[in-house]
């Protein structure tokens, strides 16, 4: 396996949230190669090797952590695009979001999200959640990619 191969794509517009997530994933040794994009548009460019990321090497992330509320293109729209395209529909997507409003939950599952996680306010809980999610999807789960 190529060690440079990207393992996780983090799609998160909040710098603070991203910093906390990245720190936890690295500290707990769950993943080392994590790419971070700050909005949905860039996320799609990344996945389909267009625009800013047309030079990206071949291969797909093993997991996509997707925030819902983002400017321009939000998480649900990115999810929909991913699940519609044969190239990306098998990549596990975990929705990470601040709220568990029912509308978001329903919409995400209808679009075929693999998992839906609410980011806790408490940092310890947050770190624990991220670790568990990462651990599960990176290590325990068998994915196609």
């Amino acid at each position, binding site marked *: 396996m190529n060690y440079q191969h990207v393992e996780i794509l983090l799609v998160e517009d909040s710098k*603070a949230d991203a910093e906390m997530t990245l720190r936890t994933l690295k500290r707990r040794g769950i993943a080392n190669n994590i790419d971070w994009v700050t909005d949905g548009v860039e996320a799609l460019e990344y996945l389909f090797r267009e625009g800013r990321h047309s030079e990206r090497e071949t291969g797909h992330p093993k997991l996509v952590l997707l925030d819902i509320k983002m400017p321009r293109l939000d998480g649900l729209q990115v999810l929909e695009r991913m699940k519609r395209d044969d190239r990306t529909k098998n990549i596990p997507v975990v929705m990470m979001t601040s709220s568990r409003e029912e509308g978001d939950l329903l919409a995400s599952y209808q679009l075929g999200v693999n998992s839906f996680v609410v980011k806790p306010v408490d*940092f310890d809980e947050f770190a624990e959640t991220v670790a568990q999610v990462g651990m599960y999807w990176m290590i325990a789960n068998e994915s196609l990619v």
Partner: protein
Amino acid sequence: MAALAVVGWAAPASVALMPGPMLAPAPAALFALAALSLWMLGRSQYRAGPTRASHGWIGRGAAGLIVFAGALLFLSHFAFLQTTGTGGWRLPVGLLHEAMAPNIAKNFILLGLALLLADTTTRRGRRPSSFFTVAVLLIALLALLGRAYGITEVVDGAIFMPVSTAGAFFLLALGTLCARPAQGVMEVVTSDGPGGATARTLFPATALLLLVLGWLRLEGERRGLYSADLGVTLYTFAFMTIFGALIWWSARLLHAMEARRAASEAERKRFFAVSPDLLYIAGSDGFLKSLNPAWETLLGFTTADLLAGPYLDLVHPDDRASTEAALRQVDTGVTQLSYENRCRCADGGYRWFSWRATAVHNERLIYGGARDITDKKEADSRILSLNAELAENARQLQQSNRELEAFSYTISHDLRAPLRHIDGYARMLQEDGAGQLAPELTRYISAISDSARHMGALIDDLLAFSRLGRRAVEPVRIDTAELVRRALQEAGGGQPVEAKVSIGGLPDAYADPVLFRQVWVNLLSNALKYSAPRGAEATIEISGEHEAGVTRYRIRDNGVGFDMRYADKLFGVFQRLHSQDEFAGTGVGLAIVQRALLRHGGGITAQSQSGEGATFTIEIPAEAVAQ
């Protein structure tokens, strides 16, 4: 009626069976034809379709032949009397002349016409056939009477006719009358009312009586019992008496009928007058002919005014077209009309009426009534406007709810993120600066974390509280024991529960599952929290029962309890009876519980002794009513 039908059959039959020698050949032939015709026509009315038609044609054909033959024979007499004419004609004419007497020929013409026209109706609804038949009947009758009284004189050749011929004519005429029993002359005779009864009684009775009287007089005179003058006197006297009696009897009958008719008329007039609805008779010319007093009462015009102009003048201009259209339906054969319109009142206003009418075509009249539905129309329009208002209110409410949804969505999302960051960075600071920071500084950082977390909890609880108010209550049957077990797990936060929890037999509840679960989670988490200081000695008892349409549950813990003096603050939002340091909490948990129970139509009460635990009792109706 049945008897007459029998006569209708019997007549031609008996004629047909009459021995041949009794009749001369020509009359016999024509009688046979007449019998056939009568028989065919008589039967035709009991058949349908092609049989009916064919019988009718045969009958009429035969009748036509009779008329033709009769005419020939009749005219032959005139021809014979004239001396002109070619030799070739004289022989056949002579034969014809011998065949039948002119009066008999005349009678056959009449009989033939009667049969021919049996089913004809003139434009004014009269039936000429019966008149011919009656004529035949009378002529035959005269001949028979003459025979009965032994007269042999010839009066204009009118009386002289063999008995058999006269009898045959009489029977055939009767038969013809009976062939169409409900028409023409027979209509009155066969009717059910007093008229028919009178005719049926008097005709035979009078005929018989007069026959006897006449015979008495003649015989008396012939036998010399009394002179001709006395005979006439007696005859006239008897006549007067009998006629007097008959007239008196008829008059009395008519008088009784008239009384009944007047009573029935009075009855009708009473209904007409007393009805609160409008009643009327209108002509097809658009004018009202007869009105009941309700018109004056409801509309305020005098009857004279109302009869003066056409009905449409009263109708509201906007409704005139539809009213006219409804009335015009009469022309297409519709007999029942029903429509609504507004009519003008004397005070200038309009009232709504619902009209029902029946058109009687023969009389070219419309009989009808109308009900004042102004009140109903007003009520209807009020209902409509109330409904519109209601719909508008509902729409606004929905709008409000949508706004609230958006609002809480924002809170939920956007307020939490910064809190997470505050706590996150605070903790990261602590983690990374573990060795370098003085314990006091670490403590400050912890305080930041705690506050952020507390605020997060407040936001969560507030959102829950608000959602509670907006959610629809959808009650179902719930297995409370099962729900409590699951709620206990959630209340314990996934950690094994130290306290000893005993769950008694719990009755099923009829409640909204989401709300009810929230109630139990909050109550149990409180019980756990406030009895935690007891450690392994902590006990929580849960029990419940049904009673008089109410389902009741009790949660008792042996925790720290609370001061009953402040019990009324227990359920207030953000109200607490313990400090944050003693026990963490937002002060919204019990407020949520109470609100949820209230929305089911239930409630909650609490009992406690400081230091000895608390008991919370919740009640909901056995069949929950959502509020």
